[in-house]
Structures are given as structure tokens and as C-alpha cells.
């Protein structure tokens, strides 16, 4: 059994060592990443005090079934990201280790201010990584929006602190029913706006196109899966368990989530470039998952979060690799590229079909449980979900047809009009694609192992009483 503090401390220590010993940094990065990916499975569950201070007074780490499964997924995805972006690491190894410490802390922490600190650690590292693409003005926009967002979040939690005198999540969850509606409205709105920037909700997501649309094989899967999964998981923790919004304001939040979903899917339909299409698809999925968290469908939200994370890893790695090899990622020029890379094509196709939720793949269970939990609330939320999923299905199937068939759309395709594009250094990516593709197919046929663990995690998220007694039990 491994103490969860080590998942934060060891990557940070390795990051500082790698500044001193630059030659060892590659070894340190992969060693730390393998350590966290494996030790995620052997994490000791329960509440951990930092520095011997009992929870309402000190900072605590919380490992329940929810953060346990998110930690495993995030650390595995981080390792996969390193493998797929192996040729683009350059001088970013120290920053990557800091990011690893940051995301682990973000998911595990039980303190709202500590959450802000870890959020800033990963966003500042994110600015530096994103700046390696050379699109400095886009990164500047991300920096301004990210800083304003985290300032609003800090403002929201300080309003809560001024009222309740505590920043501990469990203590706040205990006292939220006591505070007046006005304070609750202000603090919830500011915290929602602050977390909404990282979770890519509609009024706050102007930065996403410039960052996700200009990714390298390293930053593409890192931003779209590791960062996005951590941010949305934290969103689920804060709004699903700690600060549950009451029925008046929750409909405003749900409306924002659904508008994000529909508008992003419509924008993806009109995209001509692969990375841009995947960017809008990521925004749409974020809106969908957040809607699920807000209406209380935790199981559906978690299963779609995991499905989306693994699928987007392959999709973004492939798109960024294609751009890097050819200097262009227009979908029309890529027609028939999968004929040259059948392994990659298999993984990409399976991931796409699982993402849009066709039967026989893992995503089918996500779609069906989302619709079930949406129908349990009312009748118009599932209508929006079906509409958005339909648009998503159309553009992804069109993309797949284009990528498998050489030639121009509307004319007869033949092997003679092969695409000029190639994929350089694609072997490790092909291997990852095939492995994840097999995982999707197998878990689509035998889903019991995954769904059991996910439903356990969803139960622990909806069971706030156990969370409170675990953290505050010692008092």
C-alpha cells in the first residue's frame, strides 16, 4: 500500500533534481511516470493529514473510490502521452514532472485553497508547454483568461471563507445549508466561472481553439486528455459533492453545459482541419459530461469521462503527428492515409466509434447510461443530448470515410490517387492505438470489470455522508 502523499512528493522531488542533473532528466521523467502509473493501483484509501493537523484546521488528502479511479486513469494517460510524444519532449521534462505532481494533487486534495494552488501549478506549466508551439498570441489569450478565471475562483472561495471561516471541503459541505442564499449564489457563481475556464464551458472557452488547434504530439494528448480529465473530475467533486447547487441556479448551469455541447458539436461539423474538429469535439464532450454531473448522473458522467479520455488520446496524437509530419492537417489532404497505416487506422476507427457510442464498443454503455439518467430528470435534456450526439455521429463517420478512402469526395476512389501524406515515427503511436483499440473492443464485450469499479466510484461521489465522516470523524 502506497501513501498518496508520495504521488505528489516524488514527482516534485524528481523535478528539482532534474534541474541540477540535466542528463538524468529523461530517466527521471520516465521513472517517475512509471512509478505513478503503477502505484495508482496500490494506493491506500482513506483520509491523510498533512503535517499532523486534523482536517478542519489542516490540509488533508482524500482517497475515496472516486479519486482512486481518476488517479489511475490520469496517471496511465500521462504515461501514454509521454510515449506518444517521445520525440517532442525537448527541454520540457522538468515542467512535465511538475505537471504530474500538480494533477495528482488536484484530484486528491481536500482543501479548496490547496485546489487553487494545484490548479495554478498546472495552468502555469500549461502556458509554458503551450508556448513551445510558437503561437505566442494564442498562449497569451489563454494566460489572460486562465488568470482571470482562477482569480474569480479565489474570490469565490474567499467569500465562502469570510462566511464560514473554513476552507476544508468536508467542513464546507457540512455547513453549506446554513449560509444565506445570497452568499451561496455569489460564491457558487464565481467558483463555477473559475472552474469553467479550465473545464472549457462556453462563455469562458475562447482560448481553447488557439491552444488545442496548435498542438504537438506531446501537448495534444496532454491538454485534451490529462488536463481535461483532471479539470472535469475536480468540477464533479466540487459541484457534485461539496457545493451542490440548489434547484434555481442548477438550471442556469445545466443550460450553459447543454449550450456548450450543441454549439461545439455544430462548430466541429463545419471544421475543415482535423485538430480543429477534435478541439470542438473536446469542448462538446466537456459540456456533456458537466451536464451529467450537474443533473446527478455521476455514473454516466464518469463512464463517459473515461471513454472520452482514452479515445481522445489516440485521436489527438494522430492529428498532431500528421500535422508534424506534413506541416498541414487539412482533412481533404489526408484522404486514404489509413491505407498506409492500417494499425493506426484500426485504433483510430475503434476510438471514434466508441466515442460516438456505437454498440459493441465501450462507449455504448456510456451513451445508454447517460440517456437513462437524463430521462430520469425530465424530457428536454435527453432531446438535446440526442441531437448533439447525432451531429457528432455524422461528422465522425464522414471523417472516417474520408480517411479510409483515397481521392476527392463525390468521385470514384481508387488506390492511384493516394494521399501524399506520411506518418513519421509512427510505430509507438500505432502500438498504443492498437492496444487502446483492443481495450475498447474487449471492454465493450465484457464491460463488467470496468463498470463495477466506475459505479463504485459514482456511489462514493453521491454518498456525501461517508465523505464527511471519513474526513471529520476524528473530531
Amino acid at each position, binding site marked *: 500500500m502506497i501513501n498518496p502523499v508520495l504521488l505528489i512528493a516524488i514527482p516534485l522531488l524528481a523535478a528539482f533534481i532534474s534541474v541540477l542533473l540535466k542528463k538524468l532528466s529523461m530517466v527521471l521523467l520516465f521513472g517517475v511516470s512509471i512509478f505513478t502509473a503503477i502505484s495508482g493501483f496500490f494506493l491506500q484509501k482513506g483520509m491523510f493529514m498533512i503535517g499532523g493537523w486534523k482536517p478542519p484546521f489542516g490540509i488533508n488528502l482524500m482517497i475515496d473510490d472516486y479519486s482512486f479511479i481518476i488517479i489511475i486513469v490520469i496517471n496511465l494517460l500521462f504515461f501514454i502521452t509521454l510515449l506518444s510524444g517521445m520525440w517532442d519532449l525537448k527541454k520540457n521534462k522538468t515542467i512535465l514532472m511538475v505537471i504530474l505532481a500538480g494533477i495528482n494533487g488536484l484530484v486528491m486534495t481536500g482543501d479548496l*485553497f490547496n485546489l487553487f*494552488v494545484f490548479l495554478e501549478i498546472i495552468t*502555469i506549466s500549461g502556458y509554458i508547454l503551450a508556448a513551445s508551439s510558437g503561437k505566442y498570441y494564442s*498562449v497569451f489569450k489563454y*494566460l489572460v483568461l486562465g488568470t*482571470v478565471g482562477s482569480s474569480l475562483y479565489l474570490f469565490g472561495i*474567499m467569500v465562502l471563507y469570510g462566511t464560514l471561516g473554513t476552507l476544508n471541503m468536508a467542513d464546507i459541505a457540512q455547513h453549506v445549508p446554513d449560509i444565506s442564499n445570497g452568499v451561496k449564489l455569489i460564491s457558487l457563481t464565481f467558483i463555477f466561472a473559475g472552474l469553467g475556464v479550465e473545464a472549457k464551458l462556453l462563455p469562458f472557452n475562447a482560448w481553447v481553439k*488557439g491552444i488545442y488547434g496548435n498542438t504537438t504530439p506531446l501537448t495534444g494528448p496532454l491538454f485534451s486528455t490529462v488536463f481535461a480529465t483532471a479539470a472535469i473530475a475536480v468540477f464533479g467533486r466540487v459541484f457534485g459533492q461539496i457545493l451542490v447547487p440548489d434547484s434555481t441556479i442548477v438550471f442556469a448551469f445545466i443550460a450553459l453545459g447543454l449550450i456548450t455541447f450543441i454549439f461545439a458539436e455544430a462548430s466541429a461539423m463545419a471544421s475543415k482541419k482535423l485538430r480543429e474538429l477534435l478541439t470542438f469535439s473536446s469542448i462538446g464532450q466537456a459540456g456533456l459530461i458537466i451536464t451529467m454531473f450537474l443533473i446527478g448522473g455521476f455514473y454516466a458522467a464518469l463512464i463517459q469521462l473515461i471513454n472520452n479520455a482514452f479515445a481522445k488520446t489516440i485521436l489527438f496524437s494522430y492529428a498532431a503527428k500528421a500535422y508534424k509530419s506534413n506541416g498541414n492537417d487539412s482533412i481533404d489532404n489526408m484522404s486514404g492515409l489509413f491505407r498506409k497505416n492500417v494499425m493506426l487506422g484500426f485504433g483510430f476507427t475503434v476510438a471514434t466509434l466508441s466515442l460516438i457510442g456505437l454498440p459493441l464498443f465501450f462507449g455504448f454503455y456510456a451513451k445508454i447510461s447517460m440517456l437513462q439518467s437524463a430521462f430520469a430528470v425530465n424530457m428536454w435534456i435527453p432531446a438535446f443530448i440526442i441531437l448533439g450526439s447525432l451531429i457528432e455521429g455524422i461528422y465522425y463517420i464522414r471523417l472516417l470515410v474520408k480517411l479510409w478512402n483515397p481521392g476527392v469526395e463525390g468521385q470514384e476512389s481508387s488506390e492511384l490517387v493516394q494521399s501524399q501524406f506520411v506518418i513519421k515515427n509512427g510505430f509507438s503511436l500505432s502500438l498504443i492505438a492498437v492496444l487502446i483499440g483492443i481495450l475498447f473492443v474487449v471492454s465493450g464485450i465484457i464491460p463488467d470489470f470496468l463498470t463495477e469499479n466506475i459505479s463504485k466510484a459514482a456511489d462514493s461521489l453521491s454518498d456525501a455522508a461517508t465523505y464527511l465522516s471519513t474526513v471529520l470523524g476524528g473530531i
Partner: protein
Amino acid sequence: MSQYLYIALMFVGIYGLLSQKNILKMIISLNIMELGLNLFIISTGYINDAKAPIILFGNEGNYVDPLPQAIVLTAIVIGLGVTAVALMLARNIYKTYGTYEIDEIRGENDD
């Protein structure tokens, strides 16, 4: 009552971000916003006629809340880091486009 002044200072910073077209002025607005926020956080721990939270012999009476001060210390350091990265980006934007005005920067995504 001074909290309202600090919140107003925060909104001055946000107004600056929305109205200014110069990257350096935007970074200054960002700093003004963070300054207002930090002052607001300090003000949540204020108690009238209370002493600094340092425990000494013979120093009796109320202490102000030390936690907001610790939080502000962290927030200042984070703000410094963000400003450093922002200035690095501003320098690189100037090197690439030769200007600090965002109106004169051509779109980066139309490659």
C-alpha cells in the same frame, strides 16, 4: 466597508483587460486585478482594534485572522509567476510580430 473599495479595484483591473489593446497594458491590468483581490482577502481577516497574530508574553487581546495573510502570501507568489510568464510571452510576441498592439497581430490559426 473597505471591502467594496477592493472589489471595485478588482473590477478596474477587469475593465482594463477588456478595454486595452496593448499587451503590456493588459499585463498591468492583470496585476491591478490581482492586487484588488489580495487586498480583499486581507480584509476578510480584519478585526477592529486587534493586534498582529504574533504570540508574545504580555501581548493579550484579540489577534487578526492569520489565515488570509498566509493565503495572500501564496497568491502574491503565484501572481508573480504568472506575470513572469506573461512578460516572456509579450517579449516573444514582440520578436515575432514587431508590435505590442493586438490589433496589428495577424491571426495565428490561418496557416
